[in-house]
Protein backbone atom coordinates (compact mmCIF):
# COMPACT_ATOMS: atom_id res chain seq x y z
CA UNK A 1 0.00 0.00 0.00
CA UNK A 2 1.02 3.62 -0.43
CA UNK A 3 1.10 4.17 3.32
CA UNK A 4 3.43 1.27 3.79
CA UNK A 5 5.73 2.40 1.02
CA UNK A 6 5.87 5.87 2.53
CA UNK A 7 6.77 4.52 5.92
CA UNK A 8 9.31 2.18 4.37
CA UNK A 9 11.03 4.99 2.56
CA UNK A 10 11.63 6.83 5.81
CA UNK A 11 13.98 4.20 7.23
CA UNK A 12 17.58 3.97 6.07
CA UNK A 13 18.61 0.66 4.54
CA UNK A 14 21.07 -0.09 7.28
CA UNK A 15 18.75 0.64 10.17
CA UNK A 16 17.89 -2.11 12.60
CA UNK A 17 14.26 -1.71 11.63
CA UNK A 18 14.87 -3.07 8.18
CA UNK A 19 16.56 -6.20 9.36
CA UNK A 20 13.58 -7.22 11.39
CA UNK A 21 11.32 -9.43 9.34
CA UNK A 22 7.67 -8.87 8.85
CA UNK A 23 6.89 -12.27 10.25
CA UNK A 24 6.24 -12.56 13.92
CA UNK A 25 8.43 -14.47 16.34
CA UNK A 26 6.63 -14.61 19.65
CA UNK A 27 9.71 -13.80 21.65
CA UNK A 28 8.59 -10.53 23.16
CA UNK A 29 11.17 -8.54 21.18
CA UNK A 30 10.58 -5.55 18.87
CA UNK A 31 8.75 -6.16 15.61
CA UNK A 32 8.48 -4.15 12.39
CA UNK A 33 4.72 -4.14 11.95
CA UNK A 34 4.04 -3.47 15.62
CA UNK A 35 6.39 -0.46 15.41
CA UNK A 36 4.59 0.88 12.41
CA UNK A 37 1.22 0.48 14.08
CA UNK A 38 2.50 2.40 17.10
CA UNK A 39 3.85 5.23 14.91
CA UNK A 40 0.63 5.54 13.00
CA UNK A 41 -1.45 5.59 16.18
CA UNK A 42 0.74 8.35 17.62
CA UNK A 43 0.38 10.37 14.45
CA UNK A 44 -3.37 10.04 14.72
CA UNK A 45 -3.31 11.33 18.31
CA UNK A 46 -1.27 14.36 17.29
CA UNK A 47 -3.42 15.27 14.32
CA UNK A 48 -6.61 14.85 16.36
CA UNK A 49 -5.19 17.13 19.05
CA UNK A 50 -4.18 19.72 16.47
CA UNK A 51 -7.70 19.71 15.09
CA UNK A 52 -9.21 20.35 18.53
CA UNK A 53 -6.71 23.10 19.27
CA UNK A 54 -7.64 24.77 15.99
CA UNK A 55 -11.34 24.49 16.89
CA UNK A 56 -10.71 26.15 20.26
CA UNK A 57 -8.85 28.96 18.53
CA UNK A 58 -11.76 29.49 16.14
CA UNK A 59 -14.02 30.02 19.14
CA UNK A 60 -11.58 32.60 20.43
CA UNK A 61 -11.55 34.34 17.03
CA UNK A 62 -15.34 34.33 17.08
CA UNK A 63 -15.43 36.06 20.47
CA UNK A 64 -12.88 38.59 19.28
CA UNK A 65 -15.13 39.45 16.33
CA UNK A 66 -18.14 39.95 18.58
CA UNK A 67 -16.08 42.18 20.87
CA UNK A 68 -15.41 44.58 18.00
CA UNK A 69 -19.04 45.05 17.11
CA UNK A 70 -20.20 47.74 19.56
CA UNK A 71 -17.36 50.04 18.52
CA UNK A 72 -17.94 49.56 14.78
CA UNK A 73 -21.68 49.90 15.13
CA UNK A 74 -21.45 53.15 17.10
CA UNK A 75 -18.95 54.56 14.64
CA UNK A 76 -21.13 53.56 11.70
CA UNK A 77 -24.15 55.17 13.37
CA UNK A 78 -22.39 58.45 14.13
CA UNK A 79 -20.90 58.52 10.65
CA UNK A 80 -24.33 57.93 9.12
CA UNK A 81 -25.80 60.76 11.15
CA UNK A 82 -23.05 63.19 10.21
CA UNK A 83 -23.21 62.33 6.53
CA UNK A 84 -26.89 63.33 6.38
CA UNK A 85 -25.90 66.76 7.66
CA UNK A 86 -23.30 67.47 5.05
CA UNK A 87 -22.85 67.03 1.36
CA UNK A 88 -19.74 64.87 1.16
CA UNK A 89 -19.24 65.69 -2.52
CA UNK A 90 -18.90 69.37 -1.86
CA UNK A 91 -16.20 68.80 0.75
CA UNK A 92 -12.71 68.11 -0.41
CA UNK A 93 -11.93 64.96 1.56
CA UNK A 94 -9.13 63.01 -0.14
CA UNK A 95 -10.12 59.76 1.53
CA UNK A 96 -13.59 59.98 -0.02
CA UNK A 97 -12.49 61.15 -3.45
CA UNK A 98 -12.12 58.70 -6.32
CA UNK A 99 -8.92 59.09 -8.28
CA UNK A 100 -7.91 58.24 -11.80
CA UNK A 101 -6.49 54.76 -11.25
CA UNK A 102 -2.99 54.18 -12.57
CA UNK A 103 -1.57 52.38 -9.55
CA UNK A 104 -3.21 49.84 -7.28
CA UNK A 105 -1.92 48.53 -3.97
CA UNK A 106 -3.12 45.00 -3.23
CA UNK A 107 -3.17 43.99 0.44
CA UNK A 108 -3.08 40.19 0.74
CA UNK A 109 -3.84 38.27 3.94
CA UNK A 110 -2.30 34.78 4.26
CA UNK A 111 -1.27 32.78 7.29
CA UNK A 112 2.04 32.46 9.07
CA UNK A 113 2.06 28.69 9.22
CA UNK A 114 1.32 25.68 7.06
CA UNK A 115 -0.58 22.43 7.61
CA UNK A 116 -3.78 24.15 6.56
CA UNK A 117 -4.53 22.48 3.25
CA UNK A 118 -4.97 24.79 0.30
CA UNK A 119 -5.67 27.94 2.35
CA UNK A 120 -2.44 29.81 1.63
CA UNK A 121 -1.83 28.61 -1.90
CA UNK A 122 -5.40 29.42 -2.94
CA UNK A 123 -5.09 33.01 -1.73
CA UNK A 124 -1.64 33.43 -3.27
CA UNK A 125 -2.92 32.24 -6.64
CA UNK A 126 -5.81 34.69 -6.50
CA UNK A 127 -3.52 37.57 -5.58
CA UNK A 128 -1.15 36.76 -8.39
CA UNK A 129 -4.05 36.55 -10.83
CA UNK A 130 -5.31 39.97 -9.73
CA UNK A 131 -1.86 41.49 -10.22
CA UNK A 132 -1.64 40.09 -13.74
CA UNK A 133 -5.20 41.18 -14.50
CA UNK A 134 -4.29 44.75 -13.56
CA UNK A 135 -1.09 44.56 -15.57
CA UNK A 136 -3.11 43.54 -18.64
CA UNK A 137 -5.24 46.68 -18.16
CA UNK A 138 -2.10 48.78 -18.07
CA UNK A 139 -2.38 49.44 -14.33
CA UNK A 140 0.67 49.10 -12.13
CA UNK A 141 0.26 46.92 -9.09
CA UNK A 142 2.18 46.48 -5.86
CA UNK A 143 1.70 44.37 -2.74
CA UNK A 144 1.33 44.88 0.97
CA UNK A 145 1.69 41.35 2.32
CA UNK A 146 0.29 40.13 5.61
CA UNK A 147 1.28 36.62 6.67
CA UNK A 148 4.64 34.83 6.41
CA UNK A 149 3.44 32.39 3.75
CA UNK A 150 2.47 35.12 1.31
CA UNK A 151 5.66 37.04 2.07
CA UNK A 152 7.93 34.07 1.34
CA UNK A 153 6.14 33.33 -1.94
CA UNK A 154 6.16 36.83 -3.40
CA UNK A 155 9.60 37.78 -2.14
CA UNK A 156 11.14 34.96 -4.14
CA UNK A 157 9.70 36.43 -7.31
CA UNK A 158 10.15 39.84 -8.99
CA UNK A 159 6.96 41.46 -7.60
CA UNK A 160 6.96 45.01 -6.19
CA UNK A 161 6.30 44.72 -2.46
CA UNK A 162 5.65 47.87 -0.45
CA UNK A 163 5.73 46.32 3.01
CA UNK A 164 5.17 43.10 4.90
CA UNK A 165 3.52 42.18 8.20
CA UNK A 166 2.96 39.02 10.21
CA UNK A 167 -0.56 37.68 10.51
CA UNK A 168 -0.34 35.92 13.92
CA UNK A 169 -3.05 33.62 15.28
CA UNK A 170 -4.67 36.35 17.33
CA UNK A 171 -4.85 39.69 15.51
CA UNK A 172 -5.14 42.73 17.74
CA UNK A 173 -5.96 46.43 17.36
CA UNK A 174 -2.28 47.44 17.57
CA UNK A 175 -1.46 45.28 14.57
CA UNK A 176 -4.41 46.61 12.60
CA UNK A 177 -3.28 50.14 13.42
CA UNK A 178 0.22 49.57 11.98
CA UNK A 179 -1.27 48.20 8.77
CA UNK A 180 -3.88 50.93 8.36
CA UNK A 181 -1.25 53.62 9.05
CA UNK A 182 0.83 52.23 6.22
CA UNK A 183 -2.17 52.17 3.89
CA UNK A 184 -3.28 55.71 4.75
CA UNK A 185 0.22 57.16 4.45
CA UNK A 186 0.71 55.55 1.06
CA UNK A 187 -2.66 56.78 -0.22
CA UNK A 188 -2.45 60.31 1.16
CA UNK A 189 1.12 60.74 -0.13
CA UNK A 190 -0.26 60.06 -3.60
CA UNK A 191 1.87 56.95 -3.99
CA UNK A 192 -1.11 54.86 -4.90
CA UNK A 193 -4.54 55.53 -6.38
CA UNK A 194 -6.55 52.83 -4.71
CA UNK A 195 -5.98 50.14 -2.11
CA UNK A 196 -7.70 46.76 -2.40
CA UNK A 197 -7.82 44.04 0.22
CA UNK A 198 -7.87 40.30 -0.50
CA UNK A 199 -8.84 38.09 2.44
CA UNK A 200 -10.62 34.79 3.06
CA UNK A 201 -14.19 34.85 4.25
CA UNK A 202 -15.06 32.25 6.84
CA UNK A 203 -18.08 30.60 5.26
CA UNK A 204 -17.88 26.93 6.17
CA UNK A 205 -15.39 24.38 7.34
CA UNK A 206 -14.99 22.94 3.88
CA UNK A 207 -15.24 25.96 1.60
CA UNK A 208 -13.03 28.99 1.85
CA UNK A 209 -14.18 31.98 -0.13
CA UNK A 210 -11.49 34.46 -1.17
CA UNK A 211 -13.07 37.90 -1.11
CA UNK A 212 -11.85 41.25 -2.13
CA UNK A 213 -12.91 44.77 -1.29
CA UNK A 214 -11.69 48.29 -1.90
CA UNK A 215 -10.39 49.81 1.31
CA UNK A 216 -9.41 53.27 0.16
CA UNK A 217 -10.90 55.56 -1.13
CA UNK A 218 -14.02 55.13 0.96
CA UNK A 219 -17.55 55.50 -0.24
CA UNK A 220 -19.76 57.37 2.24
CA UNK A 221 -22.85 55.40 1.22
CA UNK A 222 -21.08 52.10 1.59
CA UNK A 223 -19.91 52.96 5.09
CA UNK A 224 -23.40 53.85 6.22
CA UNK A 225 -25.23 51.02 4.46
CA UNK A 226 -22.94 48.06 4.78
CA UNK A 227 -24.13 45.57 7.37
CA UNK A 228 -21.73 43.40 9.30
CA UNK A 229 -21.43 39.60 8.96
CA UNK A 230 -20.49 37.37 11.85
CA UNK A 231 -19.61 33.69 11.96
CA UNK A 232 -19.91 31.14 14.72
CA UNK A 233 -18.54 27.65 15.11
CA UNK A 234 -21.27 25.31 16.33
CA UNK A 235 -21.79 21.59 16.51
CA UNK A 236 -24.29 19.85 14.33
CA UNK A 237 -24.98 16.21 15.19
CA UNK A 238 -21.59 15.68 16.80
CA UNK A 239 -19.67 17.43 14.02
CA UNK A 240 -18.36 20.96 13.83
CA UNK A 241 -20.15 23.33 11.51
CA UNK A 242 -20.14 27.04 10.78
CA UNK A 243 -23.04 29.44 10.88
CA UNK A 244 -22.86 32.79 9.25
CA UNK A 245 -25.17 35.68 10.06
CA UNK A 246 -25.71 38.89 8.13
CA UNK A 247 -26.47 41.79 10.40
CA UNK A 248 -28.21 45.04 9.62
CA UNK A 249 -26.19 48.20 9.30
CA UNK A 250 -26.45 50.47 12.34
CA UNK A 251 -29.15 53.14 12.09
CA UNK A 252 -27.73 56.58 11.40
CA UNK A 253 -27.74 58.55 14.65
CA UNK A 254 -30.53 61.07 14.99
CA UNK A 255 -29.24 64.56 15.51
CA UNK A 256 -31.76 66.91 17.10
CA UNK A 257 -32.26 70.51 16.01
CA UNK A 258 -30.54 71.86 19.10
CA UNK A 259 -27.63 69.44 18.85
CA UNK A 260 -24.30 71.06 19.63
CA UNK A 261 -21.53 70.27 17.18
CA UNK A 262 -18.25 70.92 18.94
CA UNK A 263 -16.41 70.56 15.66
CA UNK A 264 -17.46 70.99 12.07
CA UNK A 265 -19.33 67.86 10.86
CA UNK A 266 -17.12 67.63 7.78
CA UNK A 267 -14.04 67.69 9.96
CA UNK A 268 -15.46 64.93 12.15
CA UNK A 269 -16.31 62.78 9.14
CA UNK A 270 -12.78 63.12 7.86
CA UNK A 271 -11.34 62.28 11.28
CA UNK A 272 -13.49 59.18 11.56
CA UNK A 273 -12.31 57.54 8.37
CA UNK A 274 -8.95 56.28 9.72
CA UNK A 275 -10.80 54.76 12.69
CA UNK A 276 -13.19 53.05 10.30
CA UNK A 277 -10.29 51.66 8.29
CA UNK A 278 -8.71 50.29 11.49
CA UNK A 279 -11.92 48.47 12.27
CA UNK A 280 -12.15 47.01 8.75
CA UNK A 281 -8.58 45.72 8.84
CA UNK A 282 -9.04 44.16 12.27
CA UNK A 283 -12.23 42.40 11.19
CA UNK A 284 -10.84 41.03 7.96
CA UNK A 285 -7.74 39.81 9.79
CA UNK A 286 -9.91 38.01 12.33
CA UNK A 287 -12.01 36.51 9.56
CA UNK A 288 -8.94 35.30 7.67
CA UNK A 289 -7.42 33.75 10.78
CA UNK A 290 -10.68 31.90 11.41
CA UNK A 291 -10.60 30.59 7.83
CA UNK A 292 -7.00 29.48 8.28
CA UNK A 293 -7.90 27.65 11.50
CA UNK A 294 -10.84 25.95 9.81
CA UNK A 295 -8.62 24.82 6.95
CA UNK A 296 -6.18 23.45 9.51
CA UNK A 297 -9.00 21.60 11.26
CA UNK A 298 -10.01 20.01 7.98
CA UNK A 299 -6.51 19.01 6.99
CA UNK A 300 -5.82 17.56 10.44
CA UNK A 301 -9.12 15.68 10.26
CA UNK A 302 -8.09 14.15 6.92
CA UNK A 303 -4.71 13.23 8.34
CA UNK A 304 -6.38 11.58 11.35
CA UNK A 305 -8.77 9.68 9.09
CA UNK A 306 -5.90 8.46 6.94
CA UNK A 307 -3.93 7.43 9.99
CA UNK A 308 -6.94 5.51 11.28
CA UNK A 309 -7.30 3.60 8.04
CA UNK A 310 -3.63 2.85 7.84
CA UNK A 311 -3.65 1.56 11.42
CA UNK A 312 -6.54 -0.75 10.54
CA UNK A 313 -4.71 -2.13 7.50
CA UNK A 314 -1.53 -2.67 9.45
CA UNK A 315 -3.43 -4.38 12.27
CA UNK A 316 -4.98 -6.83 9.84
CA UNK A 317 -1.55 -7.51 8.38
CA UNK A 318 -0.14 -8.04 11.85
CA UNK A 319 -2.86 -10.46 12.84
CA UNK A 320 -2.45 -12.49 9.68
CA UNK A 321 1.30 -12.68 10.16
CA UNK A 322 0.79 -13.72 13.78
CA UNK A 323 -1.66 -16.43 12.84
CA UNK A 324 0.65 -17.63 10.08
CA UNK A 325 3.51 -17.82 12.54
CA UNK A 326 1.45 -19.78 15.09
CA UNK A 327 0.29 -22.16 12.37
CA UNK A 328 3.86 -22.64 11.16
CA UNK A 329 5.04 -23.49 14.68
CA UNK A 330 2.22 -25.99 15.17
CA UNK A 331 3.04 -27.60 11.80
CA UNK A 332 6.70 -27.86 12.82
CA UNK A 333 5.81 -29.52 16.12
CA UNK A 334 3.30 -31.89 14.54
CA UNK A 335 5.60 -32.87 11.67
CA UNK A 336 8.45 -33.28 14.13
CA UNK A 337 6.28 -35.54 16.26
CA UNK A 338 5.12 -37.45 13.17
CA UNK A 339 8.74 -37.95 12.07
CA UNK A 340 9.60 -39.52 15.41
CA UNK A 341 6.94 -42.16 15.09
Amino acid at each position, binding site marked *: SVGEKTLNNVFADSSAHRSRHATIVMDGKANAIRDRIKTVQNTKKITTAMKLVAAAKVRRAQDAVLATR*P*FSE*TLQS*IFGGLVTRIDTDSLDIPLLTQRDVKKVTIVVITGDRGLCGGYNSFMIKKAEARYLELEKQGIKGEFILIGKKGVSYFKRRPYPIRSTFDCTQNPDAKQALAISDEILNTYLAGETDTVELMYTKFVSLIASVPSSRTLVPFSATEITEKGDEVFSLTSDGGNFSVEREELEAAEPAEFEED*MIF*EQDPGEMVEG*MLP*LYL*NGQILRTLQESVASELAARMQSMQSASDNAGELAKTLNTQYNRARQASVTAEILEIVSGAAALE
Partner: protein
Amino acid sequence: MTLNFSLPHETIYAGAEVSQVIIPGEAGEYGVTVNHVPIISQLQPGVLQIIHEDGGGETEKYFVAGGYALTHENSVTDVTCPEAVKLDDIDPDAVSKNYDTAKTAHASAELGSLAQAEAQIEMETNKAMGAAIGLTLA
Protein backbone atom coordinates in the same frame (compact mmCIF):
# COMPACT_ATOMS: atom_id res chain seq x y z
CA MET B 1 -27.50 58.64 32.61
CA THR B 2 -26.47 55.70 30.48
CA LEU B 3 -22.93 55.28 29.25
CA ASN B 4 -21.65 53.15 26.37
CA PHE B 5 -17.87 53.16 26.23
CA SER B 6 -16.29 51.02 23.53
CA LEU B 7 -12.87 50.36 22.04
CA PRO B 8 -12.23 48.54 18.75
CA HIS B 9 -11.31 45.29 20.52
CA GLU B 10 -13.45 45.43 23.66
CA THR B 11 -16.41 47.15 25.21
CA ILE B 12 -15.68 48.69 28.58
CA TYR B 13 -19.23 49.78 29.43
CA ALA B 14 -22.48 48.92 27.69
CA GLY B 15 -25.61 50.49 29.10
CA ALA B 16 -23.94 51.36 32.40
CA GLU B 17 -25.83 53.75 34.70
CA VAL B 18 -23.48 56.48 35.82
CA SER B 19 -23.87 59.83 37.48
CA GLN B 20 -21.58 61.94 35.30
CA VAL B 21 -18.97 61.65 32.55
CA ILE B 22 -16.26 64.25 32.00
CA ILE B 23 -15.08 64.17 28.42
CA PRO B 24 -11.79 65.57 27.02
CA GLY B 25 -13.25 67.25 23.95
CA GLU B 26 -10.95 68.81 21.43
CA ALA B 27 -12.50 72.22 22.07
CA GLY B 28 -12.24 71.73 25.81
CA GLU B 29 -13.26 69.44 28.63
CA TYR B 30 -16.97 69.16 29.30
CA GLY B 31 -19.12 67.25 31.71
CA VAL B 32 -22.29 65.36 30.84
CA THR B 33 -25.05 64.56 33.33
CA VAL B 34 -28.63 63.55 32.80
CA ASN B 35 -30.68 65.93 30.62
CA HIS B 36 -27.60 67.45 29.01
CA VAL B 37 -28.36 69.04 25.65
CA PRO B 38 -27.42 66.67 22.79
CA ILE B 39 -23.80 67.18 21.84
CA ILE B 40 -21.25 65.53 19.58
CA SER B 41 -17.54 66.11 19.90
CA GLN B 42 -14.22 64.83 18.69
CA LEU B 43 -11.91 63.92 21.57
CA GLN B 44 -8.31 64.85 22.13
CA PRO B 45 -5.80 62.70 24.05
CA GLY B 46 -6.75 63.29 27.64
CA VAL B 47 -8.53 61.96 30.69
CA LEU B 48 -12.05 60.57 30.58
CA GLN B 49 -13.64 60.58 34.02
CA ILE B 50 -16.58 58.37 34.86
CA ILE B 51 -18.36 59.21 38.11
CA HIS B 52 -20.41 56.25 39.25
CA GLU B 53 -23.81 56.44 40.91
CA ASP B 54 -23.57 53.86 43.61
CA GLY B 55 -22.00 54.31 47.04
CA GLY B 56 -19.53 57.17 47.41
CA GLY B 57 -19.74 58.11 43.72
CA GLU B 58 -16.20 56.95 43.01
CA THR B 59 -14.46 58.32 39.93
CA GLU B 60 -12.91 56.04 37.37
CA LYS B 61 -10.27 57.65 35.18
CA TYR B 62 -9.11 56.52 31.78
CA PHE B 63 -6.55 58.11 29.51
CA VAL B 64 -7.97 58.04 26.00
CA ALA B 65 -6.12 58.47 22.71
CA GLY B 66 -8.85 60.44 21.00
CA GLY B 67 -12.15 59.30 19.57
CA TYR B 68 -15.72 60.59 19.49
CA ALA B 69 -18.45 61.23 22.05
CA LEU B 70 -22.12 61.59 21.22
CA THR B 71 -24.78 62.46 23.78
CA HIS B 72 -28.30 61.70 22.59
CA GLU B 73 -31.57 63.42 23.44
CA ASN B 74 -32.37 60.71 26.00
CA SER B 75 -29.09 61.26 27.88
CA VAL B 76 -27.49 58.11 26.48
CA THR B 77 -23.83 58.89 25.82
CA ASP B 78 -21.71 56.90 23.38
CA VAL B 79 -17.96 57.24 23.77
CA THR B 80 -15.80 55.48 21.18
CA CYS B 81 -12.03 55.57 21.42
CA PRO B 82 -9.33 53.83 19.44
CA GLU B 83 -7.44 53.12 22.67
CA ALA B 84 -7.94 53.75 26.34
CA VAL B 85 -5.96 52.83 29.43
CA LYS B 86 -6.86 53.11 33.12
CA LEU B 87 -4.68 55.69 34.86
CA ASP B 88 -3.69 53.09 37.45
CA ASP B 89 -2.26 50.95 34.68
CA ILE B 90 0.04 53.65 33.30
CA ASP B 91 3.75 53.17 34.08
CA PRO B 92 5.23 56.61 35.01
CA ASP B 93 8.77 55.56 34.08
CA ALA B 94 7.68 54.46 30.64
CA VAL B 95 5.89 57.79 30.13
CA SER B 96 8.94 59.89 31.09
CA LYS B 97 11.24 57.73 29.04
CA ASN B 98 8.99 57.99 25.97
CA TYR B 99 8.68 61.74 26.49
CA ASP B 100 12.47 62.17 26.57
CA THR B 101 12.91 60.01 23.46
CA ALA B 102 10.27 62.04 21.62
CA LYS B 103 11.89 65.30 22.78
CA THR B 104 15.28 64.25 21.39
CA ALA B 105 13.69 63.12 18.16
CA HIS B 106 11.86 66.45 17.88
CA ALA B 107 15.05 68.45 18.41
CA SER B 108 17.04 66.47 15.90
CA ALA B 109 14.35 66.31 13.20
CA GLU B 110 14.27 68.66 10.24
CA LEU B 111 12.04 71.69 10.75
CA GLY B 112 8.60 71.10 9.26
CA SER B 113 9.26 67.46 8.43
CA LEU B 114 6.90 64.56 9.06
CA ALA B 115 9.31 63.16 11.64
CA GLN B 116 9.18 66.39 13.60
CA ALA B 117 5.39 66.52 13.50
CA GLU B 118 5.18 62.91 14.71
CA ALA B 119 7.69 63.60 17.48
CA GLN B 120 5.68 66.63 18.55
CA ILE B 121 2.45 64.63 18.76
CA GLU B 122 4.26 61.96 20.76
CA MET B 123 5.64 64.61 23.14
CA GLU B 124 2.24 66.24 23.66
CA THR B 125 0.48 62.94 24.23
CA ASN B 126 3.08 61.79 26.75
CA LYS B 127 2.94 65.17 28.47
CA ALA B 128 -0.84 64.87 28.76
CA MET B 129 -0.52 61.30 30.08
CA GLY B 130 2.10 62.50 32.55
CA ALA B 131 -0.13 65.34 33.72
CA ALA B 132 -2.96 62.83 34.19
CA ILE B 133 -0.91 60.73 36.58
CA GLY B 134 0.65 63.72 38.33
CA LEU B 135 3.95 63.75 36.51
CA THR B 136 5.21 67.12 35.28
CA LEU B 137 7.20 66.74 32.08
CA ALA B 138 9.00 69.64 30.46
